């Protein structure tokens, strides 16, 4: 070790510094593997929660059935507004859960996005029809107005027309009590 023999122009780095690049590398590996195990939630949530639902008036998606307007569901009771489509596979998956919610007396309104009447009829025949009314959002404008970025999504709207909760993706069996809880909160 030649420490003080010659005056060096640069100060020497401490000995542990040699491990620094390796440590940084391992820190990076740990970060990457943690992120791989817990992939980030890439859903874009609506930022309208707690705000009044935008006004809309959709024509009926099925002949002889009511369409859906924001005014119609502002009736003092909480409603579920389910955004769905016949071409959406998870929408079929959540159908039994919606049926269970409808059986327990929850008013469920549908907004069918970019759909065709014939396809919708087949979908409802296969999966059951829990909806009080279905509005046809053929150009997707109301979906955008609600801040929804996909199907299925389910909104809890309270009696004053305020959006209380947005459920992104299908409602799974074990999530039904949670949805009922959100409806109860909205009723207070």
């Amino acid at each position: 070790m030649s420490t003080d023999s010659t005056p060096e122009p640069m100060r020497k780095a401490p000995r542990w510094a040699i491990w620094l690049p390796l440590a940084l590398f391992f820190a990076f590996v740990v970060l990457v593997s943690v992120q791989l195990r817990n992939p980030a939630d890439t859903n874009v949530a609506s930022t309208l929660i707690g705000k009044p639902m935008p006004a809309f008036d959709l024509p009926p998606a099925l002949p002889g059935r009511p369409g859906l307007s924001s005014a119609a569901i502002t009736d003092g009771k909480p409603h579920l507004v389910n955004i769905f489509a016949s071409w959406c596979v998870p929408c079929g998956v959540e159908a039994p859960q919606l049926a269970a919610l409808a059986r327990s007396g929850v008013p469920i309104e549908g907004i069918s996005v970019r759909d065709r009447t014939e396809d919708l009829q087949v979908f409802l025949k296969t999966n059951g029809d829990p909806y009080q009314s279905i509005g046809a959002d053929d150009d997707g404008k109301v979906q955008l107005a609600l801040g929804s970025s996909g199907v299925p999504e389910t909104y809890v709207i309270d009696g004053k027309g305020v959006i209380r909760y947005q459920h992104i993706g299908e409602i799974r069996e074990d999530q039904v009590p949670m949805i009922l809880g959100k409806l109860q909160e909205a009723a207070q």
Partner: protein
Amino acid sequence: MRALLAVCLAMLGLWAVAPALAQEEQSTAPYAYRQLDDPAKEQKAEALMETLRCLQCQGQSIADSDAPIAGSMRSLVRERIAAGDDPEAIRAWLVERYGDYVSYAPRVTALTWPLFAVPLALLALAALLLRGRFRRGGQA
């Protein structure tokens, strides 16, 4: 390690399956695939569409994306521009619903100001250090 591999494989699998699931109707919105007749307005709309994120295929702008929801968003932008709306008002309308993530044009907010301030601070620091160096060099 095995779990990691499983995650990678699962992601690959999803990636392969996703196009098969997307049997979605193309957007029936009037201006999803139709340009505005007025070229000046179309240009305005185009400029805005290139800075809005597709909500489904999140790496793409709505101008680039073929996802049906991007078609709906393009039509919304074009219809509003045609009606004389300001592009920034349309952006604000979308940000109000989806948050800043929907816009590719960064804003200075309480959360993002360091992104703008740090480069400036680093430049100032560099200038300060360099000044010190040059002074010493001049004296020697």
